[in-house]
């Protein structure tokens, strides 16, 4: 009985392993700050892109008046944009969303701004469900997880005001955050790729011809993409790379050994791949959303090894502190709230994982579906999956004007039945969103929208051309199949999607 017994930490070994994984799987606050800035930028770009067609998609004068919206939206969908029907009010909501995104950009009341952005983004997407893409889904999910993460700890007005003291979680490392939500964000990003891989089941992907089909679609491919048709080997390489990256990236994100370099290389790989895809296909903001998601995963090593980045990061913080320190300190979330938030994040993660499993197998149970739809945690990572479209085509909108048949897509010129030139087909979709709309309109997903679209075309035409108003309108899709093995297309066939008289 001599002296104090030696202090043995129980489970020191386990602690070692846990600490190792914790170090490997934590997120860096500077990366999260970069993530926040990019997210806010994406929201603003998204708003700008959508605002060009504000009246078409979001008002009672557009394709989907509110009464019709209620008839076909999924049960759990809600939307602040359905409170108003007029263009003015929608413009006001767009402006509000942009202002809140700017708040988020500057890191001023970051958490509230993120939550408000999330609500407004879901509202916006729910108001016009048809034009939603994978990029939109990922953006709203990133915003969802962002609400639970300390996005405003660095490079922010909030951070400067409280002297850049990080308090969330119980981490010693001043730049690391390791909470249920940070793990959830990593799993979410991994799921995008993993489910993407599992859903790409068609032989086109296995054989490396998938990109070839994709760039063959005249409305979907960019000029660069069309040009790539002359370099089939590059397209094959891109196909295989895209497929294998989908399988590898999830593994690399969680790879615990040498995680610094592995994760940085993974981020670089994905950026390269997404930029390449974005160059050949009209994918809107989708590649940038995926890149933004990857930026959040940049490890601390990146900031420390890259002197310039580290310097820049510190400089931003210094600049902000210089101007804002000594102001009143911000109100801190009490620990209870932090625990509740972590609990919510864990439940949400469970919903997200279950939901992704159901997209691979059976339909979701009603409770799961209700939860996922209300908080818009639903997701399906089937971009170009199971196979890219194998058909292609163009739209004709024949309308009757005093017995004469004219094409509304060609500014009221007489209908011509032969194939228009490539550039004209490309321009039928006036924007990225209208390309998505037209692509889905001919799909099963767009069946309910067809008569409404025809009526909208009528209304819209007669509104601007009162002297040459039309009496009835038809939406035709001229469809031709890609006969890849023969290096050619089948003859185009006409599908009448809708026929409505103008009232």
């Amino acid at each position: 009985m001599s002296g104090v017994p030696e202090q043995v930490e129980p489970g020191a070994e386990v602690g070692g392993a846990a600490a190792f994984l914790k170090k490997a799987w934590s997120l860096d606050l500077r990366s999260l700050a970069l993530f926040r800035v990019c997210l806010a930028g994406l929201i603003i770009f998204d708003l700008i892109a959508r605002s060009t067609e504000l009246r078409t998609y979001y008002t009672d004068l557009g394709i989907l008046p509110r009464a019709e919206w209620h008839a076909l939206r999924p049960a759990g969908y809600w939307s602040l944009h359905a409170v108003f029907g007029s263009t003015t009010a929608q413009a006001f909501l767009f402006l509000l969303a942009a202002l809140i995104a700017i708040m988020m950009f500057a890191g001023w009341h970051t958490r509230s701004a993120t939550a408000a952005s999330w609500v407004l983004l879901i509202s916006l997407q729910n108001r016009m469900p048809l034009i939603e893409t994978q990029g939109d889904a990922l953006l709203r999910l990133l915003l969802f997880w962002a609400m639970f993460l300390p996005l405003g700890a660095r490079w922010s007005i909030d951070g400067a005001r409280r002297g850049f003291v990080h308090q969330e979680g119980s981490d010693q490392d001043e730049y690391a955050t390791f909470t249920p939500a940070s793990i959830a964000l990593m799993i979410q990003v991994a799921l995008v790729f993993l489910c993407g891989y599992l859903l790409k089941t068609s032989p086109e992907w296995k054989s490396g011809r998938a990109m070839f089909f994709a760039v063959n679609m005249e409305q979907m491919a960019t000029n660069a993409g069309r040009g790539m048709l002359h370099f089939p080997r590059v397209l094959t390489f891109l196909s295989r790379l895209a497929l294998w990256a989908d399988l590898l990236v999830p593994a690399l994100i969680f790879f615990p050994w040498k995680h610094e370099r592995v994760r940085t290389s993974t981020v670089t790989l994905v950026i390269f791949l997404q930029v390449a895809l974005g160059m050949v296909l009209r994918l809107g903001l989708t590649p940038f959303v995926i890149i933004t998601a990857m930026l959040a995963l940049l490890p601390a090593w990146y900031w420390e090894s890259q002197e310039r980045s580290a310097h820049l990061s510190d400089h931003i913080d210094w600049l902000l502190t210089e101007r804002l320190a000594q102001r009143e300190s911000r109100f801190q979330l009490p620990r209870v709230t932090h625990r509740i938030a972590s609990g919510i994040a864990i439940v949400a993660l469970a919903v997200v994982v279950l939901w992704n499993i159901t997209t691979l197998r059976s339909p979701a149970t009603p409770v799961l579906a209700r939860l996922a739809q209300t908080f818009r945690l639903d997701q399906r990572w089937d971009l170009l999956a199971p196979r890219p479209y194998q058909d292609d085509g163009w739209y004709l909108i024949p309308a009757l004007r005093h017995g004469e048949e004219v094409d509304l897509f060609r500014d009221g010129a007489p209908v011509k039945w032969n194939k228009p030139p490539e550039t004209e087909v490309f321009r039928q979709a006036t924007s990225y969103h209208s390309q998505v709309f037209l692509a889905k309109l001919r799909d099963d997903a767009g069946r309910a929208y067809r008569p409404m679209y025809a009526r909208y075309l009528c209304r819209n035409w007669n509104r601007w051309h009162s002297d040459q108003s039309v009496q009835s309108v038809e939406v035709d899709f001229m469809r031709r199949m890609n006969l890849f093995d023969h290096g050619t297309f089948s003859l185009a066939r006409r599908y009448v999607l809708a026929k409505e008289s103008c009232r």
Partner: protein
Amino acid sequence: MIPATNRVYAWFVKNFGMDLRALAVFRIGLAICVIGDMLIRSFDLRAFYTDEGILPRAEAVKYFIHSWSFSVFLAVGTWQLVAVLFALTFVAAFAMLVGFRSRMATFIVWVMVISVQTRMHGVGGGPDGLLRMLLFWAMFLPTGARYSVDAAMATAQEDLEEQPKRIFTAATVALMLQVVYLYWFAVLLKSGPEWRHEGTAVWYALSLEQLQTPFTRIFLSFPGFLKFLNFFVLAQETLAPLMLLVPLPLVRAVGVLFLAAMQLAFLSTLRVGLFPEVACVALIPFLPSFFWERGEQQRQDRSRITIYFDGGCDFCRKAVLILREFLLPRDTPLLAAQDSPEMHAEMREQNSWIVVDRTGHHYRTDALAVMFGHSRLPLLWYFLRVGWVQRLGDIAYHRIERIRPMLSRWMAPVRFRKVPLRSAIATQILVAALLAYVTGENLWTVNDQYAIPPAFQWPGALLRIDQRWDMFSPLPPRYDGWYVMPGELANGKIVDIFRDGEEVSFRRRDPGEVAGQYKNERWRKFLMDTSRGNNDRYLPLLSEYLCRDWNRGRHPNDPTWLRSFEIIFVGHKTAPPGGTPMPYEPSTLVGYRCGTR
């Protein structure tokens, strides 16, 4: 400013302005009305405000909502999310009640109240128009300048001598005229011969068994008195508002008294929702300063108290500031115990705050009791002096004491800042313009020749400042009766689905049963309008809802599954005074087979 202008302004403030304490109590009263109204509405949350209810949003946006109007409730359709919006309203109303960020809270409450009203016009009426107008003008008034958390925080900094007790702005004038319009235009709209010549209107109003309270029948046995009341109501609604405009405090107070008495009479004889309550709240701002100062001098003379609190605790400082604002004169000394060594020692020894009055030092619950003893609410003093209450209070005190750091963090959003009293000149001009608009809206209700041109109708629809004070106008309704809804179930049985599946019976219902047939005031308003043929657009929607509501949770093979039903109103025309009662006759409003819509 020129002194002469100053004198004129001071005269206006004194005689036409409003007392800040009156405005604060007005705010509290409004918040209570909103909480009550929303509580009553929340019982019918599914029926009135969700997509499963009578009016799904798809139908609402078709006919029922003006294109310039909005409702936050159009954003959500499931009962869970609607409940979230209700909860938000309750939180904002509570913030308004305690005066935390009063203006912001009032704004949110106003948005939610006009939203809920716009979402379901059919159940609107009674107090709705008045409630939303009072909230609207309250947004432009410094209702948080007294008896509020805001004011408590402001007293920590402001020079107390400087603050005026009364204000006179465009908004006080607007509120004043709004209340006057309520009565005057009600008189103008009561244009039927029953009101103006025969004097039978009150008789007819009270004869509606659907609206009767137990007191009503006593009045009905005195037709002569009711004839007198008829003209008395007209006179009172004309003259009492005039008294509210007289620049003599005493006359105004008497006017308030008259109108409050009339509202209490309505309350006891007619089931018209929260109307009397809201109308009484509308009178509070007219209470003159002497009313609020009554007894203050005695209380101050009785004894002064001094409060010592723990200066190192943010929560403690804010808590005593708030207690002082609500209970005590504003110049009651609040001192940090740390400043005097004896008090500091005493505080640490007793582990409590200290209230010092003539009789000595008081701690914990006892200290709170002494505070109440010196306030306007001395009754609570007796209550807090009871032995077991004090013991419970002390236990609670120690609980709270232990979590003071956490409470300090939670109280961080309660900041020390001033409450602005004057509004900007631009706001005043805006309020004046809105008042002119409201005047125009009211004139329009009297005569269509004053109609607002369609191009300028949008402010009324957007801000919901459209109004029509037409209760029992131009004459009281005379069609009265009760509903019977025989429904055919899957097993062939016929039951009354309006009465939870009772046996169908067309017997004469006694007056108590007729008055009690509806679940609450909202259903009463909606179904009374339906019985008079005012709700024809709602009829198919209501029928579909009744099917859905009955069959919810039932399987189509269930023997009690509802197949079809009829809505029958057994009604008659109420008889004139002394006339023989007319027989009741059933009339079918609609026959409906479930699932045909």
